[in-house]
């Protein structure tokens, strides 16, 4: 008997909730923003502050920030939410995942939204640094709005330079200078190295990015910017870059062997156990707050030209977000990427503000004047290029990273490694290539 009564009650409650639904139609549009925190915990609080302010200024929208872990985990959770039929209205997505998501039909073009605002795509994207367009505009359609970005940067402990009798104002600008400087900075105690001249991270994700920086500095491209089915692994520019890295380890002996994780590299730099390192500009705030010695930063040294890949994340709208939710997401995205907010987020995190106008705000001018290292990092954006993105970006990247690890551990020569990586990458991209570039008229 109690069962029946309970179920009747439940049924009544359910019916009531259905009946009441129209009454809620005037309530604010509820949207969620999935956001990753790639650097440290403080950012989660900063994001909450940002969204709280947005909700106060936009009473018709109620945005909820959902912390979704690392970049990779954010991708997983977004896909899981979409499979469950509940896509988040907006996601801060690693910029090199956009192409993959577009190919799989999981994010939507923002062209119609831009047009509704009375702008052309070029006008809209014009507010962001040129280097960021490649990873956001795909097939001439806008799929992402740059949110925070980074590039690799050379960090140098200037105390060590002075100690070695070098000019602390003259940082290595090319590979030749990098090697001679690193040799002078490396300290040995018999066979044991007590201080390395140079360190570069080579763990998954980071290693590919740094190798791309070296390849681009060597005149290379790494991947076909216009087509997701091609990478240029087995090429002279890449061979030079990989051999250079391998020489630092085995020939010049100024760089430790094997894979070095990003955290191990910054840790060694802060502990004075490496004098120079290549690391993301996103670590600038961390280094600034923790270095107990004077340091300077410079462009990534070049062999052929100055060039680096961008990193960081863009805001995207998943497929299936429609109507009011889509409009609300668009409002949120525009608000978050406007100059003032962009500048605030940049100061809080150490990332670049992708919006050029952010650097014209008085707070930002003051900040750059106080922290010239942040200024140098921004200047490097002039020579920055798109981040590698292909069909199945992560496994294609892993193909070269596994070989990079083998080279750094002296298990393979650079040439062998590149041939193997190219073969592996071509194999992974084959289904895409066969259905695009190699799909030809049959009669």
């Amino acid at each position, binding site marked *: 008997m109690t069962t029946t009564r309970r179920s009747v009650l439940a049924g009544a409650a359910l019916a009531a909730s259905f009946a009441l639904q129209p009454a809620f139609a005037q309530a604010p549009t509820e949207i969620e923003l999935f956001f990753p925190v790639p650097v440290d915990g403080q950012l989660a609080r900063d994001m909450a502050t940002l969204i709280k302010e947005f909700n106060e200024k936009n009473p018709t929208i109620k945005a909820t920030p959902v912390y979704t872990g690392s970049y990779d985990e954010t991708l997983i959770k977004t896909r899981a939410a979409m499979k469950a039929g509940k896509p988040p209205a907006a996601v801060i997505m690693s910029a090199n995942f956009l192409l993959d998501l577009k190919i799989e039909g999981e994010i939507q073009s923002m062209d119609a939204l831009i047009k509704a605002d009375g702008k052309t795509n070029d006008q809209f994207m014009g507010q962001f640094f040129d280097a960021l367009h490649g990873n956001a505009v795909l097939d001439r359609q806008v799929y992402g709005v740059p949110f925070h970005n980074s590039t690799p940067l050379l960090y140098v402990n200037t105390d060590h330079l002075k100690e070695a009798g070098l000019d602390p104002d003259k940082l290595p600008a090319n590979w030749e200078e990098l090697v001679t400087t690193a040799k002078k900075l490396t300290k040995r105690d018999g066979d044991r190295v007590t201080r390395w001249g140079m360190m570069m991270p080579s763990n998954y994700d980071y290693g590919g990015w740094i190798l791309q920086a070296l390849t681009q500095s060597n005149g290379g491209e790494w991947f076909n910017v216009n087509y997701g089915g091609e990478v240029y692994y087995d090429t002279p520019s890449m061979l030079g870059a990989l051999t250079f890295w391998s020489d630092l380890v085995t020939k010049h002996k100024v760089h430790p062997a094997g894979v070095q994780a990003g955290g191990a590299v910054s840790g060694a730099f802060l502990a004075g156990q490496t004098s120079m390192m290549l690391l993301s500009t996103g670590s600038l705030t961390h280094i600034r707050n923790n270095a107990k010695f004077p340091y300077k930063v410079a462009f990534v040294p070049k062999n052929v030209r100055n060039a680096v890949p961008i990193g960081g994340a863009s805001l995207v709208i998943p497929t299936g977000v429609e109507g009011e939710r889509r409009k609300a997401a668009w409002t949120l995205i525009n608000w978050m990427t406007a100059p003032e907010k962009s500048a605030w987020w940049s100061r809080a995190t150490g990332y670049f503000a992708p919006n050029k106008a952010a650097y014209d705000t008085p707070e930002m001018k003051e900040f750059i004047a106080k922290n010239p290292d942040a200024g140098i990092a921004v200047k490097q954006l002039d020579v920055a290029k798109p981040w590698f993105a292909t069909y199945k970006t992560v496994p294609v990247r892993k193909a070269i990273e596994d070989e990079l690890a083998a080279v750094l*551990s002296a298990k393979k020569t650079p040439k062998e490694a590149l041939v193997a990586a190219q073969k592996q990458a071509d194999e992974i991209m084959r289904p895409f290539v066969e259905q695009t570039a190699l799909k030809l008229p049959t009669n």
Partner: protein
Amino acid sequence: MAQAVLTVGKAKTWSVPDWRPRRTTVLAFALLAPSLLFLALFTYWPVVQVLWQSLHGQVRVGGPQAYVGAQNFLKLFADPAFRKALANNLVYALGTVIPSLVLALGFAMALARSSRVNALFRALFFLPVLIPLVAAASIFLFLFLPNIGLIDYHLAKLAISGPNWLGDPDVALWSIMALTVWKNAGYYMLFFLAGLQAVPADAYEAAILDGAGPWQRLRYVTLPYLKPTIGFVLVIGLLNVVTQVDHVFVLTKGGPSDSTNLLLFYVYQQAVENYDAGRAAAGTLVMLALLLVVTASSLRTLERSFGEKDA
């Protein structure tokens, strides 16, 4: 709701006259219903889904899942990374289960007698078990850091430079195995402590009277009595080897060059990084099959050893 259904079912079976032979069966199923329901929802249904998924894959790039037959399995076995993961898992199994077993037995025999000091040592050896694997891996991340990590810090005092613990393809898997042994030995010790209580004291007395030395006592008295325990711990250990990869995720992500990639992590990579649900499902099924074989064969040995003792 489930409870309500249950009581209704019960009431019915009670009122049913005795001639119905299935009364007890109905009651049993009624009692099992709640857990069966949840098992079905969260275990059997996903297994069915994995089965379905293993036969499906994306044929058109960006397209829906379509039936591909055994292709996922063929591709799986053709993938050198999968074979590498399988081989790694084998080395990992041998290199973690056997040392942890030997260590655990040693600890247990040393600490078998109850005393205050022994209680303290038991607690100390058991401590690693209390730490979640993820947390333990995060701690070891700092121990293993090249140059600045705790291990290298102490080695440097002896003027030795350690290897790149997690960054050298030849060393990384052994570092991870060392962590696993550290983590598990204390746990297995617990089973051996319990097992040792069951060895009758007069068996030792008889052995001593017969002039058996410590090794002989271990070989002919302790080990035979501990057979069921060893069998049980072996099963647990082998299951751990396949089902726990938290530390791989935290420490190396399967690198460098797939040298620490284990089966479960490979499946994760296929599902998440490669976005190939079909191959991930195929990998899961292969793993499941391996687990079933391991469990079944170990359980049989276990039963046999019980039988031996009874006889």
